[in-house]
């Protein structure tokens, strides 16, 4: 016990017992103890001077925190839809066989813990897993055997990585087997960028002129919602506040998107300069990058980029050479929660709390991080802003469609020969993209991730842009042999798990939709079940508080619309009702206990 309180005290002291650093403290405690059990929770509460229930609330909210032991080596295998397509459950069996324990368990010696996790941003190189913050991609049986052998022998996990990816993945501070898979570069994001130039240009203008340039560019938020960036900066600039923040949403969690990971790896300077430009525009002296926990392997590299930029004078006092403009950036790690991609949930999380969205108004531009006016923008938005400074808003606005200017990074994965990153002009059709990525046989394409839409062949002529098929970047190609309902089921399980639990329609509604979907998939549905499901989708979307619940029924809703035949093939025709009650299953346990066979009569 003495030992425990010493460990916790050390972890808390490292962050000056600052309650906004709760996630960091918990992460460090877990790294030391292998779990955050009730005794550790009580000790953290004591050290941080908060109630233990608040600490427990945080520990149980985030996927990578655990009250139970996670194992000295904790394997988090992705089981999102594309990982399933690429055989993650075969890999899971291999892990179980080699490690000698099941998923959801820790090996008897406490060494290896096996856990599933939802999408780790490696959809173009599945199956993949995170083991103690180290990424393992394109997993095969042989690789799993070698990894488990290394873990059993007590090898340092980083030392088990022998092959490295391309570009900066080989950087001494990353050293990851992750591949960039850049398939197509464009003029805005993946064109060469000379560090230092964009901010220099921005600070030669007035902040108002920077915002004006952004408005001319018509840049819209790249996270998916598409709010005009210039307008957001303008609102935040005009909000009264003695301090303001610029926050980068680096929590890309929409299954199927991984474009920000590539920007972090290859365009970190451009991103941080974009943040500094935003800071200059709104009048902030502090920037915060909220980085999803899955990307911990990039943190050291990004910290080093920041340090280099400070030395070069791009960040810090008189940033970009502008006297009086002091601006620096910190990195805050997430801990596994899809909802933290929602800007106000991200702010809550960055303040060390459960990632529950806030009620609006007030908007973050009025009261955001630490109650101060805050502009939260996507990684790609900041990178685009840096390019806009260099080339001008008018140049940017020449690309794209009427409502969607510029280029978009698409993360393409699934059943195509060339998965990876494509920088395309807005307005590109799905058909063009399918040809480029060689996914011509697709029976369906999921545009915008689970919260987007699932389209059939008849819509491949539609264009990727805010006015037609909006996407934060995720494009999943679904080949002719896939069971689309299985994909829908995977997405609904994801939403059910990732709902923050705050509001009734999202918390309960997604459970009920999942339940209903399973009823239909198991052959117990009728036409009235499909109609009910349609209505419940509308209720959940209408009544939910934030974007998660407002889009979570989309997998069901869009496939009921575009692939209704799949559902109709599963239901029982000519009946109003079919019971889903299975007598044999219901009495199985009690019969086993009593040691007799049930007499089920005519059921």
């Amino acid at each position, binding site marked *: 016990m003495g030992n425990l309180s010493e460990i916790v005290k050390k972890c808390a002291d490292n962050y000056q017992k600052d309650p906004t650093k709760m996630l960091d403290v918990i992460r460090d405690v877990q790294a030391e103890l292998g779990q955050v059990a009730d005794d550790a929770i009580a000790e953290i509460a004591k050290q941080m001077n908060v109630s233990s229930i608040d600490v427990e609330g945080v520990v149980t909210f985030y996927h990578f925190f655990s009250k139970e032991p996670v194992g000295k080596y904790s394997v988090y295998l992705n089981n999102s839809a594309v990982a399933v397509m690429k055989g993650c459950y075969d890999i899971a069996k291999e892990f179980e066989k080699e490690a000698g324990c099941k998923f959801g368990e820790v090996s008897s010696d406490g060494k290896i813990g096996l856990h599933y996790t939802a999408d780790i941003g490696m959809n173009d190189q599945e199956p993949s897993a995170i083991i103690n913050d180290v990424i393992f991609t394109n997993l095969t049986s042989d690789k799993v055997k070698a990894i488990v052998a290394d873990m059993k022998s007590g090898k340092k996990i980083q030392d088990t990585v022998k092959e490295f990816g391309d570009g900066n993945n080989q950087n001494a501070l990353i050293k990851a087997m992750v591949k960039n898979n850049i398939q197509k570069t464009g003029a805005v994001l993946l064109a060469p960028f000379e560090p230092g130039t964009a901010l220099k240009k921005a600070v030669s203008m007035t902040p108002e002129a920077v915002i004006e340039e952004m408005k001319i560019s018509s840049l819209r938020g790249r996270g998916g919602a598409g709010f005009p960036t210039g307008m957001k900066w303008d609102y935040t600039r005009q909000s009264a506040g003695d301090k303001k923040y610029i926050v980068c949403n680096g929590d890309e969690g929409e299954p199927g998107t991984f474009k920000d990971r590539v920007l972090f790896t290859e365009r970190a300077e451009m991103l941080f300069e974009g943040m500094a430009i935003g800071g200059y525009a709104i009048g902030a002296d502090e920037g915060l990058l909220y980085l999803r926990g899955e990307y911990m392997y990039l943190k050291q590299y990004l910290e080093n980029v920041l340090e280099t930029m400070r030395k070069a004078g791009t960040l810090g006092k008189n940033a970009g050479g502008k006297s009086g403009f002091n601006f620096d950036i910190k990195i805050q790690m997430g801990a596994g929660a899809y909802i933290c991609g929602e800007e106000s949930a991200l702010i809550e999380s960055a303040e060390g709390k459960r990632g529950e969205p806030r009620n609006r108004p007030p908007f973050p531009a009025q009261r955001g991080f630490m109650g101060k006016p805050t502009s939260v923008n996507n990684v790609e938005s900041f990178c685009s802003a840096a390019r806009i400074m260099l080339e001008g808003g008018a140049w940017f606005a020449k690309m794209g469609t009427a409502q969607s200017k510029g280029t978009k990074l698409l993360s393409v994965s699934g059943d195509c020969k060339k998965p990876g990153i494509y920088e395309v002009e807005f307005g590109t059709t799905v058909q063009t993209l399918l040809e480029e990525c060689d996914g011509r046989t697709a029976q369906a394409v999921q545009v915008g991730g689970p919260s987007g839409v699932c389209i059939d062949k008849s819509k491949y002529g539609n264009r990727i842009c805010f006015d037609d098929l909006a996407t934060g970047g995720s494009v999943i190609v679904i080949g002719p042999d896939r069971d689309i309902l299985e994909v829908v089921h995977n997405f609904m399980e994801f939403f059910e798990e990732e709902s923050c639990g705050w509001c*009734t329609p999202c918390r309960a509604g997604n459970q009920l939709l999942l339940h209903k979907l399973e009823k239909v998939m198991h052959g117990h549905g009728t036409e009235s079940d499909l109609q009910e499901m349609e209505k419940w989708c509308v209720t959940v979307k209408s009544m939910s508080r934030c974007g998660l619940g407002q889009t979570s029924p989309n997998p069901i809703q869009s496939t009921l619309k575009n692939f209704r035949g799949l559902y109709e093939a599963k239901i029982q025709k000519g009946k109003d009702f079919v019971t889903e009650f299975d007598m044999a299953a219901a009495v199985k346990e009690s019969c086993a206990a009593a040691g007799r066979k049930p007499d089920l009569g005519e059921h």
Partner: protein
Amino acid sequence: MSEIKFTIDGKECTARAGQTIVEAAKANRIYIPVLCHFEGLKPAGTCRICTVRVGGRFMAACTTPVAEGMNVENNTPAIEDMRKEIIEMLFVEGNHMCPTCEKSGNCELQALGYRYKMMVPRFPYLWPQRSVIADAPKIYLDRNRCVQCLRCVRDVITSDGKHVFGVTMRGGKTLISIDKELAAKLTEEEAVKAMNQCPVGCILRKEIGFKIPIGQRKYDTKPIGSEIEG
């Protein structure tokens, strides 16, 4: 303070600047159903029963400030049925046994069920396994009945700003819980307050049961909302 003119279902109303739609409706003797809302507490918008439609968009009336010229849709068949769905969702996602519950007759969820003429929920029961917390000296928590309104989380705070109640887990597993150390220090007044602000029978004062007989309780004679509608 300046007066705001707005309408609810076409009826002209007035409000003070800063009032939420729920508060303004009440002042105009129009009932918008609420459950997580509790006078004097910062609105949380968890239950969503108060959802109304303004300018084609759905929003929670308890967290949305009223604005000049707003046309609020409140009592439409579509909205009323969605509210009923929310009530039914709350019934199936917990384990609610009204006949044996101490709060029967004083329970706001039950009263809403009656007001919305819920016969049987359209949703299948989820039968969650939720444990009862009974080791605090003055109160016990029957979490089978919790509707996650967060009134207790918002309301019961120690003098040095610590939460006595809190939320754990997420998604369908979300569960209210309690800081045992702080719960042990609750005063009589705080314990009764915690019980009284709970809209359902989740937080109960120990050693007091059925003080007011069933049949003479708040909603036994008049439906919920009638105090506003007159």
